[in-house]
């Protein structure tokens, strides 16, 4: 795969570290959550078969985390964005 770091451009897969589902937001006040809600955050995953918003780190490059929208069946990457950017692209 060739992944586009939003800053460094297209780089080999070997330079990156996959950091998981980007739709999982760490709750701001975990102590207020029920066991069930905390479990949702900590363990449960949507794991869709298709387009997936995810976080990658350009570990052996600029070390920045960024978001990628990737199809986990075809490995097409529709879009990559800095962490604060929202993603677009890809058929869902």
């Amino acid at each position, binding site marked *: 795969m060739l992944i586009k770091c939003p800053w*460094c451009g297209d780089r080999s897969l*070997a330079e990156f570290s996959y950091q998981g589902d980007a739709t999982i937001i760490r709750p701001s006040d975990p102590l207020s959550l029920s066991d069930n809600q905390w479990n949702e955050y900590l363990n449960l995953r949507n794991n869709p078969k298709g387009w997936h918003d995810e976080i990658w780190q350009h570990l052996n490059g*600029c070390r920045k985390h960024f978001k990628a929208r990737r199809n986990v069946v075809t490995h097409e990457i529709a879009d990559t964005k800095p962490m604060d950017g929202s993603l677009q692209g890809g058929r869902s």
Partner: protein
Amino acid sequence: MVDITERRSALESHYTAGTFGAECNGHPGVMLAVRRNLSIVHVAGKPDDQTFINAIKSACGCDIPFEPGSVSVAGSLSLIWLAADRWMAVSAEPDPGILEATLRRACDDTVAVIDASHASTVLRLSGPQARTVLMKGAPLDFHARTFTPGRVATTMISQCTVTLVCIDQDTFDLYVFRSFAQHMWEWLRDASEEFGYEVSDILSG
């Protein structure tokens, strides 16, 4: 400190000048050297903060290179892009404390200034086959039209993170973490063997 205690390169006891590898009739394909006694300071700050931009300009004498993979130069000082919010100032000033202090003085404390002069070993790779040697190691496009003088990229060679700076068409600096230096040195020598290579006398600055 006026008299600076001599700095020892990580390669000191592994470094032998001479010509090695394939027979090259005095025209080695690759030249290898170590650049010693550099001052290297990492600067991390907010790219949209005008005080930061001004401070760096005043301390370094050049603009912050905002474009990813670019380098600004002011005299013997280079300001090298590392990440969206991080740069590396490199100068031939042998006392790293001076560069660090200059930058520290110029910036407020939203800016991180970190002396990393000893953290990297800087190798210089040059010669007509220098690009080919890099191609062996790093998954980057080293075409002469793509990776041009003044470009920098951080990538991987032989499982080590390296920051590569293109100095001129045939000359590159490799910033390698110090503890990996010997491994990288051995790798470079192996990769250069088939072209015949020369290890020059240690470069300073």
